[in-house]
C-alpha cells in the first residue's frame, strides 16, 4: 500500500511538471479592441427679432428707407406704435435621451394689421456625428381657433407662405423649418440659418380685432445620420 501511494504521488508530480513544461511551449497574443460612439449635439441660437416693420403707407411692401413711410419699430418705440414688442426664445440642445439633441423655438407675438416680424434662428452641429433633417413636433399654444393665427402670413427662408389653418398650419410651419435646417455636417462644419417672417396683412379684417397675442412653439429632435437608411 505504501509502495502504491508512493508511485501514485510520483506520477502526479510528474504530470504536474510535464504540464508546466508544456505550457512553456505556448504563447498568447492580446488583441484589444475599443469602440466608442460619437457625440450628437446641435446648438441652437437666435439673432432674436431682427426687424418689426409697420406698414404705415399701407402698400404692403414693408420697406424702410428713403422715400418710404414704413417704420422699423424697436423695443424703445414699440409703445409709440401701440405694439408689444414680440419675443422669440430658443432652448439649446439637450443631449440626454436616445442619441438625440432636442431644441426648441418659442414665439410670442402681438401684432395688428400691417405689421411684419422677422427673426433668425441659427443651427450649428457641434457634435462629432452628422445629423439628419430634424424631426419636428409643434405645440399649438394659443393658436387653435385663433383668427390671428389663421390670418398670419408666415414664410420660411423666403419661400411660399405656409398654408393651412390651426394646428395644420403650425405643423406645416414646423416641416418648413425642418426642411430649411436639413442635414448638418459635424464638428462645426454644418450650419443653417432659418429666417422666419410673420406678417399680419393690412387687409386682415375685424376678426383679428382685439386679439391680444399668440404664442407657438416648435420642438426639433436631431438624430444621427445613418448611411444605411438615407
Amino acid at each position, binding site marked *: 500500500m505504501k509502495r502504491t501511494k508512493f508511485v501514485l504521488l510520483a506520477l502526479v508530480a510528474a504530470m504536474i511538471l510535464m504540464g508546466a513544461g508544456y505550457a512553456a511551449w505556448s504563447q498568447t497574443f492580446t488583441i484589444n479592441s475599443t469602440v466608442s460612439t460619437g457625440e450628437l449635439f446641435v446648438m441652437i441660437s437666435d439673432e432674436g427679432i431682427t426687424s418689426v416693420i409697420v406698414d404705415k403707407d399701407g402698400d404692403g411692401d414693408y420697406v424702410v428707407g428713403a422715400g418710404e413711410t414704413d417704420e422699423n419699430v424697436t423695443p424703445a418705440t414699440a409703445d409709440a406704435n401701440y405694439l408689444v414688442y414680440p419675443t422669440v426664445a430658443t432652448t439649446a440642445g439637450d443631449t440626454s435621451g*436616445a442619441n438625440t439633441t432636442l431644441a426648441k423655438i418659442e414665439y410670442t407675438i402681438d401684432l395688428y394689421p400691417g405689421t411684419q416680424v422677422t427673426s433668425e434662428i441659427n443651427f450649428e452641429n457641434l457634435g462629432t456625428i*452628422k445629423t439628419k433633417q430634424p424631426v419636428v413636433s409643434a405645440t399649438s399654444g394659443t393658436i387653435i381657433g385663433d383668427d390671428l393665427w389663421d390670418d398670419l402670413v408666415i414664410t420660411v427662408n423666403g419661400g411660399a407662405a405656409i398654408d393651412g389653418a390651426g394646428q395644420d398650419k403650425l405643423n406645416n410651419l414646423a416641416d418648413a423649418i425642418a426642411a430649411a435646417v436639413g442635414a448638418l455636417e459635424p464638428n462645426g462644419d454644418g450650419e443653417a440659418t432659418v429666417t422666419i417672417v410673420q406678417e399680419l396683412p393690412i387687409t386682415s379684417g375685424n376678426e383679428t380685432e382685439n386679439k391680444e397675442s399668440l404664442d407657438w412653439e416648435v420642438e426639433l429632435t436631431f*438624430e444621427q445620420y445613418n448611411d*444605411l437608411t438615407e
Partner: protein
Amino acid sequence: MRFKIGKYKSLLVFAVVSLIIMGLSYNMAGAQDFRNSALAYNLMVLVPEECEVLDTSPGVLADVEFQRDKFGNISDKTNINLMATNVYAGAHAEFRITAQNVSDITLSVDEYKLEFEQSEDSLADLIYFSGIVKIIRYGEQYYDELGSFENVSLTELDDNLTAILKYRKIDLKEKIVLELNQQFDNDQAKFAGRTNLSYRLFPVFVQYFPQNDKTTPESE
C-alpha cells in the same frame, strides 16, 4: 522511512527527478530573460505593416496601434489595439490582423479566449462580427482560406475563431490573416445610453502535433 528500491522504482524516481530539474531550469531561464525576450523568444508575432484598417463607414474613425517605446519603435509585437470611434447605428469598421510564425517549430492555435466588460452603457450586444481567416503559405505566393463567419455576436466570437483555427497547422514563416469586420446594429433606438465597448481576444498558439490519422481515412 526505509524502503527497498527495486529496479523499476529507481527508473521512476530518476524520471521524476529529471522532470523536476527540467521544469525548474526552464522556468528559471525563462523568468530571467522574460523582460528582454518579448521579441526574440516569441513563437508568433504580429506583422505591423500588414495590420491595418480595411474599411469604415462614413464618419467612423478607426486605427490600429501597437505599444511603442519612447523612440517610437514597436516594443511588443504580441499586443495590438484596434480602435473605432464615432460609431453609430448601422456603422462598421473592418480590420486586418496578420501574425507570422517566427519560431523553429510548427504551430497551431489551441483556442481563442475572450474578455469584455459588461456595463449599462456597453455596446456589447449591439455589435456583430463577420470575417475571414486565411493562411499565407510558401513565401507569400498564395493563400488558403481557412474559414469565414457572419453575424456572430461578441460572446460567440471566440468559439467561432477557435473552431476555424484549432488543429490547423502553421508552418515556419507562414502567416495567419484575420480580416475582422465589426458591424453595429441598425436600430438607433437601441443605442440610447450606450456609449462604449472594450473587449480582448487572446489567441493561444501551441506546438502543432499531428492528429492520429494513419489508421483512419481522411475526412474532407
